[in-house]
């Protein structure tokens, strides 16, 4: 979360290597998006999936797998699994995104982000065209421990997803705390509650032990 809005989104995009930024970072043990293996260990999903509208979901995922260096058989297996997870049925999987609409495109974007089985998922206000409950289900990823870094303008909608919450203010992390601290302080998971908790602390918090990648999650 950030005040003004947009700073968290910019941070997530910078972590993903899509926005220029100064400084150093380390995600999943990798320092740079051009490092070998980045695409398989770190995935980004923004408000717009960035997938060509003439592609079908299945085709987009197979291309994503091919670009990540997966064998065709492995890419096909992971495609089936990812499509099932995001709730894209077989007939929709063969429909172009142009015909399928925004929700199909956003589900496909998440599936493509999952195709590499990433350790870190950088989420910039994703899946807004999807029903909130379904969105929460899809983002509670199964399997191994992962770190989700979620930039959101509607923290109330992220209930059940985040273990920690961070507030960026004036280019600095003004708050980094477990979500439970909000309830303990009598605040709800909302922008107002987060700002109140940050203001109630009275001083800038100690920096988190890891980079902001640890700000939300792991689950």
């Amino acid at each position, binding site marked *: 979360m950030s005040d003004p809005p947009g700073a968290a989104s910019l941070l997530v*995009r910078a972590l*993903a*290597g*899509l*926005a*220029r930024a100064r400084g150093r970072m380390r995600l999943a043990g990798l320092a740079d*998006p*051009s490092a070998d*293996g*980045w*695409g*398989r260990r770190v*995935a*980004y999903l*923004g408000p*717009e*999936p*960035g*997938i*060509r509208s*003439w592609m079908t979901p299945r085709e987009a995922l197979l*291309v*994503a797998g*091919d*670009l*990540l*260096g997966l064998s065709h058989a492995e890419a096909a297996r992971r495609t089936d699994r990812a499509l099932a997870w995001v709730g894209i049925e077989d007939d929709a999987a063969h429909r172009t995104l142009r015909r399928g609409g925004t929700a199909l495109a956003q589900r496909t974007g998440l599936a*493509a*982000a999952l195709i*590499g089985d990433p350790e870190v998922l950088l989420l910039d206000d994703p899946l807004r065209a999807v029903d909130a409950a379904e969105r929460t289900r899809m983002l509670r990823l199964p399997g191994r421990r992962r770190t989700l870094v979620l930039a959101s303008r509607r923290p109330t909608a992220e209930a059940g997803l985040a273990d920690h919450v961070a507030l960026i203010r004036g280019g600095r992390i003004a708050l980094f705390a477990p979500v439970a601290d909000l309830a303990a302080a009598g605040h709800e998971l909302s922008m107002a509650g987060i700002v109140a908790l940050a203001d109630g602390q009275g001083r800038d918090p100690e920096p988190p032990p890891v980079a902001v990648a640890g700000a939300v999650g792991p689950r």
Partner: protein
Amino acid sequence: MSQAGSVIGLAVRELWISFRLLGLLVLGVGAGAGVALFPASVADTLERLALGLAVAVAAAAAVAAWSVAAERTSGRAGWLVGRSVGRGTLVAAWFLAVTAVAVAGIAIAAGLGWLALAAYPTRPDPVTYLALVAGVSAWAAAAIAAGILAGTLLPRLAAAVVAAGLAASIGLLGWLTGIDPATTVPLPGISLALLAGAADHPVIVGPAVRGAGVALAAAAALLIVARAALERADL
């Protein structure tokens, strides 16, 4: 398939589905058909062919600029970068995709132009004609590279207009510097001027080859700058 091959394939499909590929081919074929279907003197035929090719090259530069700007601003380039595709690979893929289509159009136009000149004993000899066409193709590569650079820096429409204007003006500059091979400055677009004036002046292969070399060197330099610009761009 290699990652670069996959990205080139995506670029070609994007050009096809958006009808930009067809447009480039039609312009090339149109330049050749315009001289094949309407017979004229050797001088007029070569001049009209050169003019048609100039339009095709300017259009190719505009298509390259528009395509790269669209990839950058739509998030599609970011999607590829997120799959470990290097930004340099993006630049190279779009350059190769657009250049391949443009050169195919130029080759078709040149073939139709040669057929139109078949009846004239005063037409240029085949080696000279091929050297001139190769020079025009190299100029197209340079223009496309300039278009890609514009696409990394500007929005779609502005990039396309700047790229087309630059291609047209440098081609025209090559025309205006004169077409006497003895004094010709090896500008990137000089082959267009040499082609247009081939009927009136004894053309030698040297200036066309030199012009092609300059064009290819310019294309390489522009692509390096385009890659550096894309490395600094937000996707």
